[in-house]
């Protein structure tokens, strides 16, 4: 095939790929054509041909930039937001409340943060979802890059009477953790001095149980702070219970269940899949499932009688 014909074919291809929206493929063909032209003494001086291709490449580049610059998570119409909710709460076997939670989380994931906050505000009215929803609201505020808004919201909750003191304390610990991680120096108020020991699990942890094998956390694994699980056995069946993460190795998280919550152990059996886990990290919130890989009673030390539960994270 002579060189002119080769170039013609390359340009034809490039043109077609461009109309198909295959921009990188089109660019490659234009570059190949340019190379061929430059390698040929006769064609090298054909300024018309060269200018023509330069022009095509310029238009193509503009298209590529437009695509790169387009907003990734634009605010969409209320109708589409409804659709997002519906799409992600499409499950036959869930309670209406949990479906609503899934829907609100989906809105947040699609970047519809303001609408998600409205939805989570509705869910705050449900006792079993109150804390989960409140944390999500704080997270949405932070994703909207208004840390102050998150703090103001928390302060308002303190003066409202929607939350119990225990619930507020959970939010306090949660928000304080985030502020610390973000390097924000802000003293959060509390409704009153906590009367209950909030995180006994952490304070009572003995050195002989887990310290020796405190693992390195893999870089690419999300740092999970806590998780919410819908309990499927009596007496707390149907409730979302929150567990603080004791530690994390890659995508395996370890919870500690104190002996006084022994009833909860029934919900964890090795090999079982737990659906509907809400995972909380300081930067994100996501739902998923998990597979129980270990349930072990602690035999020695101050935590004797408590249970260690390992869960492998499966992100949806």
């Amino acid at each position, binding site marked *: 095939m002579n060189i002119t014909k080769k170039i013609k*074919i390359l340009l*034809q*291809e490039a043109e*077609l*790929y461009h109309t*198909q*929206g*295959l*921009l990188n*493929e089109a660019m490659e063909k234009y570059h190949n054509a340019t190379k061929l032209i430059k390698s040929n003494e006769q064609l090298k001086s054909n300024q018309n041909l060269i200018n023509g291709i330069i022009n095509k490449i310029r238009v193509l580049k503009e*298209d590529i930039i*437009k*695509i790169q*610059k*387009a*907003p*990734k998570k*634009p605010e*969409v119409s209320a*109708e*589409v937001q409804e*659709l*997002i909710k519906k*799409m*992600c709460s*499409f*499950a*036959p076997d869930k309670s209406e409340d949990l479906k609503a939670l899934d829907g609100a989380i*989906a809105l947040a*994931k*699609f970047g519809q943060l303001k609408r998600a906050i409205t939805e989570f505000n509705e869910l705050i009215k449900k006792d079993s979802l109150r804390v989960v929803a409140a944390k999500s609201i704080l997270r949405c505020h932070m994703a909207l890059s208004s840390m102050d808004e998150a703090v103001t919201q928390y302060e308002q909750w303190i003066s409202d009477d929607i939350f119990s003191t225990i619930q507020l304390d959970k939010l306090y610990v949660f928000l304080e953790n985030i502020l610390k991680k973000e390097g924000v120096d802000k003293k959060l108020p509390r409704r009153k001095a906590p009367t209950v020991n909030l995180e006994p699990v952490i304070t009572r942890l003995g050195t002989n149980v887990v310290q020796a094998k405190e693992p390195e956390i893999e870089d690419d694994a999300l740092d999970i702070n806590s998780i919410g699980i819908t309990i499927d056995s009596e007496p707390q069946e149907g409730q979302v219970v929150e567990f603080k993460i004791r530690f994390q190795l890659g995508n395996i998280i370890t919870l500690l269940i104190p002996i006084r919550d022994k009833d909860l152990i029934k919900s964890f059996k090795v090999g079982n*899949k737990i659906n509907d886990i809400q995972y909380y990290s300081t930067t994100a919130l996501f739902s998923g*499932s998990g597979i129980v890989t270990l349930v072990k009673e602690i035999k020695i030390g101050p935590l004797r009688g408590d249970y260690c539960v390992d869960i492998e994270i*499966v*992100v*949806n």
Partner: protein
Amino acid sequence: MAIFNIKKRELECKIVYYGPGRSGKTTNMEYIYKTYKKQVVGEMVSVDTEGDRTLFFDFLPMGLGQIKGFDIKVQVYTVPGQVQYKSTRKLVLKGVDGVIFVADSLAVRREKNMLSLKDLQHNLKEYGINIVNIPLIMQHNKRDLTGQGVPVMTIEQMERDLNRQLKVPSFPASAIIGESVGATLKECLKLTLLSLKKQIKSG
């Protein structure tokens, strides 16, 4: 994960068009929307971005009428094929009952087809679904480009690349002129309803 409502005598299932960017998923749905007026029960909703690329999804609500006394409703979605929308693709796939994989016949997209099929397999697995167990149809799209001066793969090559192990039903198609668009969807609906019937019986 179809919703089977015995009280309302209604079955609602979800079909998703999957495949690499620009392979013709949205074009398939547009053709269905224009052509199957009787089965389309609402507007087609598209959330797209620059250059007509799907950003979140396309959605089309359909109704197949009564089958054995049950009202069959179908939610049809397309995923955004661009590589960077990985997490959105996964969200759209949630609760899927049947998949149509739209592959691009252009030779320059060979690798992208294979990567997208792998991505589908991976995302299904994360939802606890093995790709060999879900109703899946393969569509080799843009057949009209054969003989138009660009390299187009043969059906044999595409079958070897994508369907050698899966061995699912496949259709050469040209979504832009509607060729085999209806046949692809019909086959997927048939397999999906059959699979749901089996699930309902065994459950």
